[in-house]
């Protein structure tokens, strides 16, 4: 699990006292978070606690109102001011969504080649080569000419992973990547993620898969009503939680 190399590099995410409101709803409260290169951070917490909002701030899909946020050395400003930095960050940060969000009008291969071609300026042939290599790696090389609607959920999510990886991101965000899948397909997606973690990818993962979290995480963060209540290595958080809230959350999710 620990072939990580550059863990002592500068943090790739640096969040300080981040505050986020949806109207009058205070969703993130003074959140501090640092992610160092090569680290795998898993975020857990009850529904509505702000997990999605937190990771969506990292690539600017949600704006925040107060605090500091630096991703890959670039500063994101409060109130979502569209900036050059934001787009640069997005080219370096990949995201996998709960609902896959594949482009249904494009073939699997075109889903994967679109961004490298249009953003990185890769040639059709280059992009295709990369796409086929990545699709091979996530085990769907033979489906490249199909359309997303023709694939199973698990296959679609693996295409989504390949699509994000095609941009050669420095950081990958996952928002409940297996929550929309039938149980028998969860394993194949987790396997692909495990593989990625082993290769040293920096990852921030929101998941309800606790045994997976325990296995791949370097650090687990428990968030409750927009606040980070507890964080630490998975053994510490899962086996010896310090806070009562964490304990009651874990006892609810670990019993079934």
């Amino acid at each position, binding site marked *: 699990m620990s072939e990580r190399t550059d863990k002592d590099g500068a943090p790739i995410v640096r969040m300080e006292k981040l505050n986020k409101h949806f109207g009058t709803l205070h969703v993130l409260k003074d959140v501090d978070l640092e992610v160092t290169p090569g680290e795998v951070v898993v975020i857990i917490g009850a529904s509505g606690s702000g997990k999605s909002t937190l990771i969506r701030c990292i*690539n*600017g*899909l949600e704006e925040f109102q107060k605090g500091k946020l630096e991703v890959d050395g670039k500063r994101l400003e409060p109130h979502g001011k569209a900036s050059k930095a934001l*787009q640069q960050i*997005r*080219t*370096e*940060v*990949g*995201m996998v*969504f709960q*609902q896959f*969000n*594949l*482009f*249904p*009008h494009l073939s699997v291969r075109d889903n994967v080649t*679109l*961004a490298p071609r*249009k*953003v990185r300026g890769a040639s059709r042939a280059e992009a295709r080569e990369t796409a086929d290599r990545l699709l091979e790696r996530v085990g769907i090389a033979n489906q490249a000419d199909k359309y997303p609607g023709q694939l199973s959920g698990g296959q679609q999510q693996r295409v*989504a992973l390949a*699509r*994000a990886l095609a*941009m050669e991101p420095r950081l990958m965000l996952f928002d409940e990547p297996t929550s929309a899948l039938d149980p028998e397909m969860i394993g194949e997606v987790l396997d692909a993620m495990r593989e990625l973690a082993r290769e040293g990818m920096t990852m921030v993962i929101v998941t309800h898969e606790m045994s997976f979290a325990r296995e791949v995480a370097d650090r687990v963060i428990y968030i409750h009503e927009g606040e980070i209540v507890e964080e630490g290595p998975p053994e510490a958080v899962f086996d010896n939680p310090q806070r009562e809230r964490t304990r009651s959350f874990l006892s609810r999710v670990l019993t079934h």
Partner: protein
Amino acid sequence: MNSSFDFDWEAAFQSIPHLLAGIPYTLLISFAGLAIGFVIGMIFGLLRLSRAPWLRWPAVAYIEIFRGTPVLVQVLFIFYGLPQILGGPIPALAAGIAAIAVNSGAYISEIVRGGVQSIERGQREAGLSLGLSRSQTFRYIIWPQGFRRMIPALGNQGIISIKDTSLFAVIGVGELVRQGQIYIATTFRALEVYLMVAILYLAITLTLSLLLRLLERKGLVGQ
């Protein structure tokens, strides 16, 4: 009572060559008008979606005005009214094309807005998260999907606009209805001629419906 009902098949058939002379005008007004209307609709439909009020408001005003007034009044205004402002006459054909353009443009604006809005938020987020710019996301992801969903409604609007051109007989454009009126003036066979006029409209609109049905079957439409 059956003395008044003697359908003259010969008169009906003889009217056809005369009526056919109107079809190029009907088609020209329809398709030129709709083509311009589509450009207008794309621009105003997107402006309508803008978050900036000074962009959105003119679009709302345009749509409401041209949807809320009859196309007949619009063409009369353009043909008889505008020359007073412009200081010179407007050809009837141009007035007809303009009326279809601004009228269908208002409806198509709403179709474009609906089509674009119907694309799930996740599509845009996926595009942006891959580093595509907002305009690239629109061009490669939102528009192609939205456009497919617009096609049935656009086809519908096409059929409505084709039929609307029949009103332009009043300004003397030599389209289908006008040709019918001219022929009736010399033959007095209103029943036969208007039946033939109706059949010719039906032939045009059914052809369009059929084309759309084919597109749909090929899976190029909808989703």
